């Protein structure tokens, strides 16, 4: 263990410490940094909205309340859209591209195309968010943008997010890794899902409750096939890479991949148990959600099996990248297990319409995907920029503020949601009393939102400081 290591400074370094960046990485620098910097800016914006939304909970006056633009319904929509499409997509455009270029020794010659896609994506997003604030939204969560935004985002995705597939197709050797399958799957599935959902929900609206059905299908696919699959790819890469070991039971990984993709697409209607949609559709969703336990268990064997052997946890804890990545892996397992259990009718009857679903979703998109992206960044950025992370203290602030902030919120959503469900199930408890019990969690959510903002600011300062200080790219080519 090096000096840096003990001081908590992230260990990601330029290869061989000679300050040179490999040809592959030099070719990625432009697009990667564009995606990454946009991602972090959107993350900061989403966190600020998160604080505004949390502070408004339980109060009718609050900050900014007499202004239509900042009414809670619009803030909530804008916050989620910025987090998902701003942070989540840009971050995985960057990470997925880096991963597959790395694994396929892909030198990226058409970086400008990806950058064009990135710019188009972010412009369309900015426009969409402005429309949401102006009240021009659709009423479908995560498909809030007015319908002219959809096609632009889809084209931008093809320009920005399709390169990992190209890198895979051009890889020199026949051998492939689990990370590659997951990224190829995510990059191919999302545009299909997005276009079909746009078509059915916005352009050629299906009649009546079929809209809600299509929407549930879209959200499940977005969460699992983009966020889940992309995060898994990174987990399957960084864990063995940093620990310098093969994963326990790695031969099972193809089963994890195929079962994950085959079941995830059917889970949508599990969110509609009890809703006015045909029973057989609800049941199909429930069965699929329960089947998702298969990939979740295999991933657990691969990941936690590895971490549990040969002092894996201790090493993961002492490595900045792995500390975040294994946090994400635990969150993935938890989300998978709870998602399966709470899909069943009796369980879902209890927690439906409470904050429980938010908790499950955030376990996946924040606890897993975002933490994994953070961890990956600590590994990748030093290699791309040839610089070191400026401040070890900020790394600590980042980890503790996001980890604790997230844990607090997830407990509030899950435990609070469960408690809320218990009270609601008893019609003798007046609604006002249910509401008062629920409000007691609002303080936790407020503190959590502030902690997350602090963590993200620390991360941004450190990352932007490093990018600005980095030596000019010209000096680093071979």
């Amino acid at each position, binding site marked *: 263990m090096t000096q840096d290591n003990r001081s908590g400074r992230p260990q990601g370094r330029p290869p061989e410490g000679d300050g040179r960046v490999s040809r592959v990485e030099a070719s990625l620098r432009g697009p990667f940094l564009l995606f990454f910097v946009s991602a972090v800016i959107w993350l900061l914006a989403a966190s600020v909205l998160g604080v505004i939304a949390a502070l*408004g909970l339980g*109060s*009718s*006056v609050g900050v900014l*309340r*007499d202004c*239509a633009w900042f009414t*809670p*319904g*619009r803030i909530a929509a804008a916050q989620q859209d910025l987090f998902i499409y701003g942070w989540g997509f840009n971050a995985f455009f960057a990470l997925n591209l880096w991963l597959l270029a790395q694994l396929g020794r892909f030198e990226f010659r058409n970086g400008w195309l990806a950058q064009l896609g990135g710019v188009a994506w972010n412009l369309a997003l900015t426009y969409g968010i402005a429309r949401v604030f102006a*009240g*021009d*939204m*659709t*009423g479908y969560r995560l498909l809030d943008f007015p319908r002219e935004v959809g096609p632009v985002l889809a084209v931008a995705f093809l320009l920005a997010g399709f390169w990992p*597939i190209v890198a*895979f197709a051009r890889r020199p050797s*026949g*051998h*492939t890794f689990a990370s590659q399958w997951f990224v*190829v*799957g995510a990059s191919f599935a999302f545009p299909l899902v997005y276009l*079909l959902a746009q078509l*059915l929900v916005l352009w050629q609206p*299906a*009649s*009546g*409750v079929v*809209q*809600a*059905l*299509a929407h549930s*299908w879209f959200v499940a696919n977005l969460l699992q*096939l983009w966020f889940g699959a992309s995060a898994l790819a990174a987990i399957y890469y960084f864990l063995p890479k940093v620990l310098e070991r093969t994963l326990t039971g790695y031969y099972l990984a*193809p089963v994890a991949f195929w079962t994950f*993709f085959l079941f995830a*697409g*059917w889970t*949508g209607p599990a969110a509609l*148990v*009890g*809703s*006015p949609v*045909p029973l057989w*559709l609800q049941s*199909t969703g429930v069965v699929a959600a329960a089947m998702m336990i298969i990939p979740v268990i295999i991933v657990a064997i691969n990941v936690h099996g590895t971490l549990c052997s040969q002092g894996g946890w201790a090493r993961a804890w002492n490595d900045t990248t792995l500390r975040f990545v294994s946090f994400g892996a635990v969150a993935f397992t938890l989300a998978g297990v709870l998602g399966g259990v709470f899909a069943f*009718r009796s369980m879902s*009857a209890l927690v*439906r*319409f*409470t*904050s429980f*679903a*938010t908790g499950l979703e955030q376990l996946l998109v924040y606890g897993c995907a975002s933490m994994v992206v953070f961890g990956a960044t600590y590994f990748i950025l030093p290699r791309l920029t040839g610089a070191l992370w400026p401040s070890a203290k900020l790394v600590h602030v980042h980890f503790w503020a996001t980890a604790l902030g997230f844990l607090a919120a997830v407990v509030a959503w899950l435990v609070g949601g469960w408690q809320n469900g218990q009270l*609601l*199930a008893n*019609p003798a408890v007046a609604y*006002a009393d249910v*509401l008062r019990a629920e*409000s007691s969690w609002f303080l936790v959510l407020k503190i959590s939102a502030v902690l997350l903002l602090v963590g993200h600011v620390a991360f941004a300062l450190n990352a932007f400081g490093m990018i600005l200080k980095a030596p000019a790219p010209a000096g680093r080519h071979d």
Partner: protein
Amino acid sequence: MKNLNTLLAGVFLAVALPFGALILSGQSQLGGLGRAAGEEGGALFPSREPGLAIQGRAVYVSLGCVNCHTQQVRPAGQGSDIARGYGVRPSVARDYALQSQVLLGERRLGPDLANYGARTSQINVETLLTDPASSGAVWHPSYRFVDAAQRTALVAYLKSLRQDYPSPEAKLKK
């Protein structure tokens, strides 16, 4: 696994099969729903929405009320919706057949509104929107900034929400 085409074909099926089986067949099962009488020779329901209510729905969407309010009543075995008085019968797909935009909702921070126009409430909705603190509600966001015309439409929309008629899929208990 080594073959890109196998991978892409597999992923394509993983998206296309559920889409076809869940969404397209859902559409073919429910797409034809329209107004119907719950009893022999009874009146046709759901009723057509008044124009003001249609305007009000747009206000409801644009203010994001759907973030905190659902519009669906689950059957008796699934939660306490009916016992809580959110409706006299479970919601059925036909109830939404005439709505251009279906706002089932996913989260209930506030009560369900599927039958707001049919049930009683201690809270005066006009006061709730303009001055929540004095409306008797535990808490509610203020919508004082909404102009009078829009508010009238919004309230008309809320009062138009009802599923208390018999439907072929959900008879009313006598």
